């Protein structure tokens, strides 16, 4: 069995985690740029982070036969100061494609962009990063807010995305739950379920959502990071689906084929 974890923050994980993931069948990860648990004090801090994501992390993953891909952006939590956010966003094009000076060749798109507290400042920078994705023809990975802010934030984000020319089939909206998944799919976007203790969905609920909303345009990820999270959440969800009697083809579809199909829209994604 093999699987892809399409959203995991490996910079926050130990090398042991790569080893355990490889042993559990992980052959590729994609790592969106996000908040590090504290606010960075300068744009230079992001520059170093982007280099870590494009240069260092792929080498660490490769030791265990795992391919590492990434997404760049300024995350919504640090995007509340538009001047600062623009300084960070202006560094991204050089990392994006083969014409960029700093390209590691593993950047799949812009992400994880979105909203955190649903503020006007966050929305301005979200719109500017959507425009960046439009200009450079990049895939988009979207972070939706937590808990009580998720429903409103998801709708605001979808409205901002729908105002762009980006095909919704090139956008994945992550951290969906039972109250947001159907709107996301109905509007033509891809949906990601995050298997994260307490604030997102459990493997059981992820299996429930697939049973209720189908297995098209949907994937699951661990979003493993510096918080209480589980880098083996995807294989655990695979087991949950199997113990209910779902076919191996269905399990493979949501944990391998679907991520491969979505990510292959980027010329920088291919599995070796």
């Amino acid at each position: 069995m093999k699987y892809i974890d399409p959203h995991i923050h490996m910079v926050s994980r130990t090398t042991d985690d790569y080893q355990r993931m490889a042993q559990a069948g992980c052959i590729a990860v994609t790592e969106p740029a996000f908040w590090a648990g504290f606010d960075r004090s300068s744009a230079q801090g992001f520059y170093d982070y982007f280099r870590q994501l494009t240069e260092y992390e792929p080498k660490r993953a490769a030791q265990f036969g795992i391919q590492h891909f990434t997404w760049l952006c300024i995350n919504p939590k640090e995007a509340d100061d538009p001047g600062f956010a623009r300084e960070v966003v202006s560094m991204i094009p050089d990392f994006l494609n083969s014409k960029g000076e700093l390209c590691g060749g593993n950047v799949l798109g812009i992400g994880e962009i979105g909203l955190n507290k649903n503020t006007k400042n966050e929305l301005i920078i979200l719109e500017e990063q959507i425009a960046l994705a439009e200009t450079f023809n990049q895939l988009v990975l979207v972070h939706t807010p937590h808990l009580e802010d998720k429903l409103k934030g998801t709708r605001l984000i979808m409205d901002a995305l729908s105002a762009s020319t980006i095909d919704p089939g090139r956008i994945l909206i992550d951290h969906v739950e039972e109250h947001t998944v159907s709107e996301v799919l109905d509007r033509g976007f891809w949906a990601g379920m995050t298997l994260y203790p307490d604030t997102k969905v459990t493997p059981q609920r992820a299996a429930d959502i697939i049973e209720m909303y189908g297995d098209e345009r949907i994937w699951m990820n661990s979003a493993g990071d510096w918080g209480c999270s589980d880098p083996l959440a995807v294989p655990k969800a695979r087991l949950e689906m199997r113990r209910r009697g779902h076919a191996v083809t269905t399990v493979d579809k949501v944990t391998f084929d679907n991520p491969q199909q979505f990510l292959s829209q980027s010329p920088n994604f291919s599995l070796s």
Partner: protein
Amino acid sequence: MNRQTNPQTKQQIVDTYFMEHRAKLVDIAAYLDRVDRGHGDDAADFRDVAFRRAVEILLDGQPQRAGRILNLLSDHSTKLPQSADGMKGALGAVSLTDGGAA
């Protein structure tokens, strides 16, 4: 794959999950008992109010309970603050008089 399909029978689902959710049910009961035993006023916290409304959904016999509880615990206001400066993190529920519970 067809929608609305769980490969298990109702009996198999109960066999698989009853013990796990029995424990979670007792947890909820113990939590409500704990709130009762707490000191101070009965002045209801908005999260406690929302929690008790959510518990009612569990037994209303209608489908989509998880989605409806998440909706109940969501901000339905249309206000957009300029900045998050000074705002608290997410609290998990919204006051019913302040954009909660559509």
